[in-house]
């Protein structure tokens, strides 16, 4: 053994120190569990910091709605959980329509949400929209809106979760990636270049690298790593409080309290997860700029000061993997497909329930990793043999 390496025992080892790993660690620690988090870079280094900070129930895939609604309740009182407001601004999120077709699509959507028993998404007409978001283009004829949605500060959120975890005794090992995972009796033994952690439960919260870790555990989950791009402007005079998206075209648009305007919405650059790098696609950014300008004419001469991209894992059905793995005491929570930020508070709680109570308090069947298990079973037995040795 490397003389510099340390060896730790815990009840749960979490691989990945992004927001989902942090939230899972926090909820486990709050229930008294001994937790170690392994992070290959540094806490919150990737999608957890590079995201747009949207706190949004609006437009969620239907299976996500109950989780997202429960998470929104935690966000409303996030200081109670973290002793830090995470920069959360509760205002509104709107999805804009500029054609009758788009308006009809939004109406259908609102109906679907009501049909499963939720009332938070509501249609607003052009006048209401203009009162709410005066800067919006006159071409916009209505919107789907959620009041109480908004945005928060990703950096601040990462730090708040991390600080609270440390306060509750969670141990972090940062800067070294997982090299091997083996079985020792009923425990998982996870090794990095510097640390060996032995724990009963293993949670994979590795985001863009979630598929890689899952494969080491015999779960072959079809993740794709992409690099969603964002850009931010100079400070501008205050003109809106909430967040706007658009029906039928990628857009995410918000002004922060400091006056800067963040533009995103899903155009992607190139992702290089092996080296942690991303490259920007300027044609894609040009398209985002044109879209933002079209919906918000006030932006024509706004100056863009920074563009960036983060690495994020996408599942083929654009909803995450949350649930038990193929092997005993393995749990996955990743592949949030660029909308995991708002869900972090609740999903950490769900994972803690799965681990401690063996059962989640909210429906998570749609996220079961088994939905991709056709391939996994074929390869699983072979991997199991390897682990058994």
């Amino acid at each position, binding site marked *: 053994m490397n003389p510099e390496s340390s060896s730790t025992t815990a009840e749960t080892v979490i691989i990945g120190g992004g927001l989902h790993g942090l939230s899972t660690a926090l909820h486990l620690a709050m229930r008294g569990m001994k937790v170690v988090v392994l992070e290959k870079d*540094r806490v*919150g280094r990737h999608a957890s*910091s590079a995201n747009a900070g949207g706190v949004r129930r609006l437009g969620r895939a239907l299976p996500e709605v109950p989780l997202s609604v429960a998470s929104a309740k935690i966000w409303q009182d996030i200081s109670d959980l973290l002793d830090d407001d995470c920069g959360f601004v509760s205002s509104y999120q709107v999805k804009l329509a500029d*054609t009758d*077709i*788009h308006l009809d*699509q939004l109406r259908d959507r609102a109906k679907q949400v009501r049909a499963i028993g939720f009332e938070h998404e509501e249609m607003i007409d052009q006048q209401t929209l203009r009162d709410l978001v005066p800067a919006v283009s006159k071409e916009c004829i209505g919107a789907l809106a959620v009041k109480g949605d908004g945005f928060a500060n990703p*950096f601040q959120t*990462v*730090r708040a979760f991390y600080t609270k975890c440390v306060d509750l005794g969670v141990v972090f090992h940062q800067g070294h990636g997982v090299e091997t995972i083996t079985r020792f009796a009923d425990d998982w033994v996870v090794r990095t270049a510097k640390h060996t952690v032995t724990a009963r439960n293993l949670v994979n919260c590795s985001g863009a690298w979630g598929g890689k870790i899952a494969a080491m555990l015999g779960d072959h989950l079809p993740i794709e790593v992409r690099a969603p791009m964002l850009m931010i*402007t*100079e*400070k501008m005079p205050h003109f809106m409080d909430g967040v706007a998206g658009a*029906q*039928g*075209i*990628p857009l995410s648009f918000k002004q922060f309290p400091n006056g800067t305007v963040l533009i995103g919405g899903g155009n992607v650059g190139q992702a290089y997860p092996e080296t942690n790098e991303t490259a*920007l696609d*300027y*044609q894609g*950014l*040009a*398209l985002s*700029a*044109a*879209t*933002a*300008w079209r919906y918000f004419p006030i*932006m*024509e*001469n*706004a*100056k*863009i*000061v*920074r*563009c*960036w991209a983060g690495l994020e894992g996408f599942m083929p059905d654009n909803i995450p993997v949350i649930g038990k793995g193929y092997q005993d005491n393995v749990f996955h929570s990743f592949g949030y497909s660029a909308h995991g930020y708002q869900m972090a508070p609740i999903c950490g709680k769900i994972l803690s329930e799965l681990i401690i109570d063996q059962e989640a308090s909210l429906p998570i069947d749609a996220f079961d990793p088994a939905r991709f298990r056709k391939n996994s079973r074929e390869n699983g037995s072979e991997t199991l043999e390897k682990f058994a040795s």
Partner: protein
Amino acid sequence: MNDQFDIIVIGAGPAGISAALEADHHGASVCLLDEQASAGGQIYRNVSQSTPARTKVLGSDYLKGEQLVRDLRNSGVVHRTGVTVWKVGQDGTIAYSKEEFATQIKGRHVIIANGATERSTPLPGWTKPGAMTVGAAQILMKSAGIVPTNAVLIGSGPLLYLVAQQLVTAGAPPKALVETQTKTDLLRATRHLVPALKGWKQLAKGLQLIAAIRMAGVPRFTGATNIAIHGDEKVDRVSFEANGKNHSIQVTSALLHQGVVPNTQITRSIGLKHIYSGQQHCFHPVTDLFGQSSNIVFSIAGDGAGIGGAKVAALSGKISALNAVCQIGKIPKSKCETLAAPILKKRSAELAIRPFLDAAYPPPADVLRPADETIICRCEEVTAGNIRRFASLGCKGPNQAKSFGRPGMGPCQGRYCGLTVTQILAQETKQSHDVVGAYRIRAPLKPITLKELASLETPKEPETVK
């Protein structure tokens, strides 16, 4: 893609103009991109439009630029002025904006000649209106003929003397020179004096400048410490310690200078290799003798590769151009080496004075290790103390620092604070400057409007989601 060229040169200062002319001479198609309305760079700014009165103030060295600009006009170089280069791709693709419209061009080889930028001088009060860099004051003199009055010059280095002398000639002598270099610095520098004598003309010129300043009765203070700039709405007073005494001078402007450092925004954005120079207290891109960078497509010429001054820059420009035309097959390697040999020799003679200057006029501790309450990042108002606190909380590098308190995230894109943040973190974390590293730089290299970015390529109307 609108245009392709054999060689694209970024920056029309002495290095860029010389490079463009040399490449043109060897039959390459050359495009020279420059931010200013006319060629000359910072040193020869606006030289072709200068009036006799202004030229008298700015001196004969300034006029040397005229010949270069004239040669450029008579060459085959495509000179695009008033352009803002905001993206340089690793393959030699360059995006720039001109009159609110973005264009992309591509070069088989790109010579980066974007020069130097003034070292930040984070002293208490340096962000108050009325405090500016000596370089900014020179821009006012060169392009608008505006002369700062009732000024005090603070800092160190040859440019400080040059501007002081220019102010004297313009009839607005500065109230004082508050210099930060110490007698120890000068003593330490003397061991570089013998090789520096090869550059005796420059030394003599420096001594002449100092004599002229003394003749005009401008008081000089050396070894100044605890410098602070005061004033409620604008600068009205400067205080400091020198020769064991406290001094206070009423002023209307404070002109700051601590030498220049390579402008690495472009070279960083391409991911070229950089290294920290302990002698010059700054990062510079790694190049070979010919200016070839770590990416085969890019050469770097002039102060952007390491500070050498205008004459060195002009020679480097020629050498880089030879390297570039050789890289793209216009001349064989042997010819490149033969042609470059005498220029390389001349350049090393011109560089002989650098170790002396670097040792005699080092940035002082107050600037390398600013006091806790001094603002480092002026865009986001982050102090040196903040950076030290981030380090104590586990922050190891400038990019991580952003997540602690937003330094480098404002409109200047980290130009002012980048080097200082690295220096403070290196000291606090006991890591080398190279390990601490620098801000990750990404396009847009200069802020551009949404309209400009949107014009890059007329976006296709995306399909409506059914």
